[in-house]
C-alpha cells in the first residue's frame, strides 16, 4: 500500500514556520530598544483631532482653571505618560491652574502626582517657575463612582468637591474650594476646559454628563481611540489626541507650531480645520517620549509585518508541497 507523502521537515516552508519563539522575542526586544538611542524626527502630518486639541490648549486664557481627569496608570504608561507630559508642559507654560481627579483606578492619582514631580524638577532645572501645590494645582481625589461624580460635577462644583481636601503651602489639610485654583469656580462652566486623559471608558461617562456644560478635551490610548473619535466628529469633544500618534502630533506641534512660520518664514504644519496661527514653544523641551517611541514603534511594527508574511508564505509553501 502506498503511503501518503509527508512534507520533509527540512523544506523551506517548514523552516519558515519553525523559527523558534525565542528568536522572535529577541528580535522584538532589540528593535524595541536600539532605535530609542537614535534622536530623529520622522515626517508627520498631525491629525485634525490632535491639531484641534493643540489649538484649544494653546488658546486657554492664562491664569484660568481646568480640571484634568487623569485615569491612567503604569498599565498604559507607554502612551498616557507622553500625553500627560505634553499636556502638563503646555498648561504649566501658560500658567493655567489645574485640579486633577481620578475615577478609574486607585493608583491613578499617585501616578499623576509622581509624573508631575518629575516635570516640576525639569522646570526648576531649566530655570522655570516651580508649579506649587495648592497655589497652582490641587488634587481633588479618587472617586470610584464615575457616573455619580460626573452628574454631581454637572450640577454644582461646590457640592461635588466640598468634601475634598488637599494640603496647603504650610502642609495643613484644607478644603480644595479654599485654594486659589478653585477660587470662583461654582459650576463646571466656570472652568476653561475639562480635560480627560484616560486608557478606559471614563471619558465617555464624563462626556455623557458634561459635554454640553463645559469645553471638553480628550487624550486617550490607541485602544480607546476608535470608539472615542465619534465624539470628536460630533463636536462633543473639541480636541482629541489618540495613542502614540497623538503624542507625536502634540510634541511636533509644540516644536513647530500650527500654521506658524519659523524664523525663515516657512510654515511646517498647515492645518485643514483652522487658519489661526498657533505658535510653538521655542527653546523649550518639546520632543520627548512621543518622538523617541514613535520611531521605535515603526521598527517593531515592521518586524510584525515581516513575521506575518513569513508565517503566511511558510503555510503556503508547506501546503503546496503537501499537495504535490
Amino acid at each position, binding site marked *: 500500500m502506498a503511503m501518503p507523502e509527508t512534507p520533509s521537515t527540512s523544506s523551506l516552508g517548514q523552516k519558515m514556520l519553525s523559527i523558534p*519563539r*525565542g528568536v522572535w*522575542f529577541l528580535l*522584538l*526586544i532589540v528593535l*524595541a*530598544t536600539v532605535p*530609542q*538611542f537614535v534622536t530623529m524626527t520622522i515626517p508627520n502630518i498631525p491629525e485634525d483631532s490632535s491639531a484641534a486639541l493643540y489649538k484649544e490648549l494653546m488658546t486657554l486664557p492664562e491664569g484660568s482653571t481646568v480640571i484634568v481627569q487623569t485615569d491612567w496608570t503604569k*498599565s*498604559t*504608561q*507607554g*502612551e498616557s*505618560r507622553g500625553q500627560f507630559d505634553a499636556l502638563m508642559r503646555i498648561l504649566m507654560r501658560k500658567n493655567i491652574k489645574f485640579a486633577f481627579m481620578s475615577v478609574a483606578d*486607585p*493608583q491613578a*492619582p*499617585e501616578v499623576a502626582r509622581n509624573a508631575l514631580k518629575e516635570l516640576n524638577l525639569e522646570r526648576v532645572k531649566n530655570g522655570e517657575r516651580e508649579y506649587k501645590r495648592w497655589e497652582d494645582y490641587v488634587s481633588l*481625589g*479618587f*472617586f*470610584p463612582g464615575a*457616573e455619580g461624580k460626573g*452628574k454631581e460635577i454637572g450640577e454644582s462644583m461646590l457640592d461635588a468637591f466640598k*468634601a*475634598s*481636601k488637599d494640603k496647603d503651602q504650610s502642609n495643613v489639610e484644607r478644603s480644595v474650594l479654599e485654594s486659589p485654583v478653585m477660587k470662583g469656580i461654582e459650576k463646571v462652566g466656570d472652568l476653561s476646559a475639562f480635560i480627560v486623559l484616560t486608557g478606559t471608558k471614563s471619558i*465617555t461617562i464624563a*462626556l*455623557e*454628563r458634561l*459635554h454640553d456644560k463645559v469645553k471638553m478635551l480628550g487624550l486617550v*490610548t*490607541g*485602544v480607546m*481611540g*476608535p*470608539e472615542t473619535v*465619534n*465624539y470628536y*466628529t*460630533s*463636536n*462633543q469633544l473639541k480636541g482629541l489626541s489618540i*495613542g*502614540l500618534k497623538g503624542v507625536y502630533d502634540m510634541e511636533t506641534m509644540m516644536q513647530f507650531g500650527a*500654521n506658524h512660520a519659523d524664523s525663515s518664514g516657512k*510654515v511646517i504644519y*498647515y492645518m*485643514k480645520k483652522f*487658519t489661526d*496661527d498657533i505658535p510653538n514653544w521655542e527653546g523649550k523641551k518639546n520632543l520627548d*517620549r512621543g518622538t523617541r*517611541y514613535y520611531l*521605535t*514603534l515603526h521598527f*517593531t*511594527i515592521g518586524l*510584525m509585518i515581516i513575521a506575518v508574511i513569513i508565517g503566511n508564505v511558510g503555510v503556503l509553501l508547506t501546503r503546496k508541497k503537501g499537495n504535490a
Partner: protein
Amino acid sequence: MFTFVGMKFTFGVIATFGLYSVLWRENKFYRFWEHVFLGLAAGWALVTLWIETLKPLWWDKMVGSIAENGNTAEPGFWAWAFMLPIGLAGYFVFSRKHAWVGRVPVAIIIGLWSGQQFDVWIQKYWPQMNASMVPLFPTNFGFRPQVPLDNPVLKATIEQNVYLSQAIGNLIGTITLLSVLAYFLFGIELKSKFMQGTTKLGRYLLMVGFGAIFGSTVMMRFTLLIDRMYFIWIEWFQNIVMGRGI
C-alpha cells in the same frame, strides 16, 4: 546606583525581567513577581480608597471635625452611619442562605444608574445623529483647496462650498452608517436582494472597523514594551548605572 532612587529603579528592572520571563516559559521567578505585583496593587487600592474616598466622603462627614480652639469646625451627621450596613450587605453574596441581602446595595446602584440613562442616552447619541446628517451633493467639482492663512474672504468662500472630495467622503460615511445599521436588523426577514447585499456590505465594513481597532490595540501593546525598554535602557542603565541622569 546605591542611592534610594538607584535601588528603586534596580528593583523595578528586576521585576520587569521577572514578569517578562514568562515569555520563556512559566516559572517560579515569574510567579513570585506576579504575586508581588498583585499584593501591591490590592494593598494600594485599599489604602487609597480609605484616604482619598471613604474618609473625606463618608467618615469625616459622619464624625465631623474639631477646630484648633476646641470648637466644632464641621458638625457630624449621624445618618451617614446607615451607609455602613448597606455597604456591608454586599458581602452577603458569599452566604448561600442570605445571598438575597447582597442584592439590596446592587439594586440601589442599578436604580441610580438607570435613572441617569434617559438623559445620558440623549446627551450621548443626539449630537452624533446630528453629525451624521452631512451634505452628499457637491457644489464644486474639485478637491478642497488649502485654506489660505491670510485671506478671510477666500477662507469663507472655501468653507461655504461642498467640494467633490468632501462629498465622496460624506457618501462613504453615510453608506457605512446605513449598511451597518441594516446589518443589525435581526427582527425582520430581509428577502430583497438589495437589503441582503446591504447587510453583507455592513458586515464587511464592520470587519474593516474591527481590523482598524485591532491594529490600534497591537500598537498600544508594542508601546508598552517600548516603554519598558526605555525604563531599562535609558532610565536605569543610562541614567542610573552609567550615572548620566539622576
